[in-house]
Structures are given as C-alpha cells and as structure tokens.
C-alpha cells in the first residue's frame, strides 16, 4: 500500500524510510530536551524540539538520520533543534555511516528564538560541509507540506544530493513574505499553481536544483535514498567553479523569464502546460538521459533534455 510521505509525522517517516525496527533514536522525547525559550513566551514546547535524530539501517547499511516535524512550529530551527542537527552531523564524522539522511520540513529560522536560530542555521551548514568534505554523503529528502524554506533551503543546497517529491517545495523566502513586501503583483501567494511551479519539486528537478523527483510515497523516497548511499560529491575548487559557471549561465539563459513555464519552454519542453499533470516517474524518464551518472550529471545543466524532440 502506498504511504504518503507528506501525511506522516517525522517519527513515522523515519520508521518507514529505514529498514523495519532498525531505528534507534538519540535524545528522544523521554529525555525531555526542550527549548528553554518557548517556555518563557508561554508557548507549548515539544519533548524533541521538533526534530527526530538517530541511527538505523537502509537496505542493511548503516545511516544516520534526522527528520523535522513540520507540525511543530513549522519545523522551525531553534537553539535545541539546531544543536541536535549539528550533533547528528558531527556524529557522522566519528561513525562514518553510508550517508546522513535529512528529512527536511521547515520554514527556516524559528522566529520565536530568532537570534539563536540564525546562528544555529550557519552552524548546521558548517557541520554539514564538514561531513561532505569527509566523503560522507548528506542526502536531503524533501516531501512535507510545509516545504523547505529560509535557512533550511540554504542547508538543503549545501548537501550532496536533494530528493524532492512533486508535492514538495524548496525555496528561500515564502510567497507570503514576498507578497507582503512587494505586493500581490510581485507574487500572489494564494495562486497555488503559481507557487507550485515557482518553488515546487518539478521545477526544481527540471532546473537541476533537485537531483531526484519522486512520488509522494515512502517507498519511492526509500529507494531514492538507498541509491545515493555512499555517493559522495566532495566540494572541490573544480566542483565550485563548475557550479559558478552553471549559475552564471542560468542567469544569461533564464534571467529574463517571467514564469516557470517560460523557462521550461526554453529548456526544450515542448508543452510546458502539461508538466503539472505528469507523474514523477515520467519526468525522471524524460529528463535524465540514459547513462548519465547522477553524481556527475548534477552539475551539468540539463540543457538538452531527452524530451527535446517534443515528446512532452
């Protein structure tokens, strides 16, 4: 039976992603490690501060894992939440798992403890990049209803790999923030279709910002994560020079586009209006040219998708 990633809690996602019965939680709810700041505000706290961390196995291989609970403060990163993420990443340097899996669902910095959250996000970024430099892949799995925004959007793009469902969103500022800053003409946050094609999994996949696109299904996330175990992509000078070239090229090619559909058309998608209705598997098949190694393919612009002949 298909299990929706987006409808499960963080703890359920972890249980279903890993091999059955292998998850061992660290600093679980019983330890009552809560935010000291929310209590001062009279705001209810959570015994895990909104993030589940621990170890387990995926197809028999040891992994470390973290999952943010979007139902608690939108997955916002506070002092304790951030410190748990830093802890599990540093633990990876000692335990050397096949990967660190991060099930990200977060609006970014938790505004109730804003200053601590801001520093925490940068600490997570540095800890993550230490893990990446050690040759241990960090894999972001994004599929929750709250998306992956703000500081978590930055952290996601520091990881070795990003897997998104077509229901997921990844971005920096939320549409509401942009609308309140520059008006509804700039970004209509209530236009769901606009929001999805600007920040959603399909657009991110077509642009190469998400490496893999999967259905909103635990088994699909599990298989995508399993395929990336041990697939490290160290950040070398060459890698970042290629990234610089890709991002410069992107500005030249798409900097004047007003809508995601303009970009898709320019990418060679013959019928951009059909993208919304496509299944993730169809998109994967069309846009990853056969034989392209995912680890290396990522840095390449998907300039000539296999659908360029008009199959889409």
């Amino acid at each position: 039976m298909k299990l929706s990633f987006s409808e499960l809690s963080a703890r359920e996602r972890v249980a279903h992603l890993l091999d059955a019965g292998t998850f061992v939680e660290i600093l679980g709810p019983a330890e009552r490690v809560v935010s000291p700041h929310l209590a001062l505000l009279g705001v209810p706290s959570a015994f895990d501060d909104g993030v589940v961390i621990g170890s387990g196995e995926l197809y028999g291989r040891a992994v470390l894992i973290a999952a943010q609970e979007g139902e608690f403060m939108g997955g916002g990163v506070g002092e304790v939440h951030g410190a748990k993420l830093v802890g599990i990443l540093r633990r990876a340097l000692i335990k050397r798992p096949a990967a660190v899996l991060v099930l990200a669902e977060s609006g970014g910095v938790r505004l109730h403890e804003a200053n601590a959250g801001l520093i925490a996000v940068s600490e997570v970024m540095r800890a993550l990049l230490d893990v990446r430099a050690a040759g241990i892949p960090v894999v972001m799995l994004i599929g929750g209803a709250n998306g992956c925004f703000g500081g978590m959007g930055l952290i996601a793009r520091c990881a070795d790999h990003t897997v998104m469902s077509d229901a997921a969103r990844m971005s920096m500022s939320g549409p509401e923030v942009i609308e309140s800053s520059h008006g509804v003409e700039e970004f209509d946050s209530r236009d769901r279709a606009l929001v999805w094609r600007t920040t959603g999994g399909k657009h991110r996949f077509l642009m190469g910002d998400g490496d893999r696109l999967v259905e909103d299904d635990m088994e699909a996330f599990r298989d995508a994560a399993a395929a990336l175990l041990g697939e490290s992509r160290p950040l070398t000078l060459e890698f970042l020079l290629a990234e610089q070239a890709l991002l410069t090229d992107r500005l030249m090619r798409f900097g004047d586009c007003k809508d995601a559909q303009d970009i898709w058309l320019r990418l060679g998608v013959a019928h951009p209006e059909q993208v919304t209705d496509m299944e993730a598997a169809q998109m994967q098949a069309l846009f990853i040219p056969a034989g392209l190694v995912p680890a290396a393919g990522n840095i390449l612009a998907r300039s000539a998708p296999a659908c360029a002949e008009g199959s889409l």
Partner: protein
Amino acid sequence: MNWQTLASALFGEAHTIERRGDVICGTAQLQGQTLAVVGTTDHAAIGVETALAQAKFILDTVQNHPGRAMLLLVDTQGQRLRHRDELLCINRYMAHLGCCVDLARRSGHRVIGLVYDQALSGGFITSGLMADSCHALPEAEIRVMRLPAMSRVTKISEEVLQALSLSNPVFAPGVENYVAMGGIQSLWAGDLQASLLAALADANTADQRAAMGATRGGRKLASEVTRRVLLA
C-alpha cells in the same frame, strides 16, 4: 560607518577596494600581507547576481592566490524578496556563496567576517557567519526581525518581548546579544587595524560558537545538546 571610511581606517590608502553595484571588492595591504576584501554596501538586498559576484571573487582568490587571507564585509538587509530570484532558486545561489567561503577556509585561507553596518538573516548566514570568525563594529545592527514584527508573528505583546529580551538575548536585535550567543566573536572598537590583525593571527578554524555562547551565557543549551548527541 560607510565602507570608504572603514577601508581607510583598516588600510589607509593601501587598498584597491571598489564598488560595483552593491558589491565591494578589491585587495588591501596590511603589514606586508595582502588581503582579499569582498562584501556588500548600502544595506544590499542579496539577490542572485549579488551572491554570484561575491562567489566569483572568492573563487578567483582561491584559484589564483592560494592562502591569501580574506575579509568579508557585511552590510545587508537580507535576501532579495522577489519572485524572479525564487524562480531561479536563489537559495542555490546563496548556498553556493556559503560553500565558496567554506572552500576558502578549508583550502587554508584565513577568512574573517566583519559586520560594519547591518546584517540580516539570509544575507548574513551565507557570508560573515561562514567565516572562521565573525566580528562587528559596536554600532552595527544584527537581527532576524525587529520586536514589532516578532510580536506579530508570535502574537506576544511587544512589552513582554521587550522585558524578556533584557534577560535573554535570543529575542531582541543587537550586536551585544550576538556576542553573548557566540555568533559574533568580538566587537571592534578603537584601533580597527589592530583588531583585524588580532583576528588574522588567531589560528583557530573550528566552529566554537556554541561553546562561546555557553561560556558567555547567551546560548546555554546548544553546546551541551550537541555534546550529548555525540556521546549517546
């Protein structure tokens, strides 16, 4: 302090820092060593172009001037809040900038951040906060959000937040609060050149901000929680 005054205070005439758009960059001489200097001015909104321009300068330095120390000058209102930037995946551009700073540190460049005017959220996370150590001028302003906005988000009265912020630095803007939490290593007052030289001489490259926050009392739990995860 504007960037020209700051550059003069740090380097006198011995610098080639120029402004291109909102980005400032160039090199400077300080007691026989050359520094690469890059940052933003005019409370820049960090958009895809601004992030990319800074990243390019940093990569050029790593590629062509191995080991050259870097100074990141921070004055930003945060990320640019535009539909176009989100469409182009601004978080990837900003993360790239952060990764370039990280590569520089890892490749043996000493990287110092300095908040000389204003630092907000995303624009700060991917520059100054990725340095070996980040410092600030006493008159600088650092924040995620002001108390009135925080009051709206949290639905807690501004008076209550104001009162809480007297005893807990996580709530209110201010450089002193960031010092107490370990996010800012020190405030540079008086002889700025001496402060920069001291920061450059400090050879520590590990992230000790959580430990500093605990010692200084502004962020009591972060270091302990991380330690418990490691020992579990």
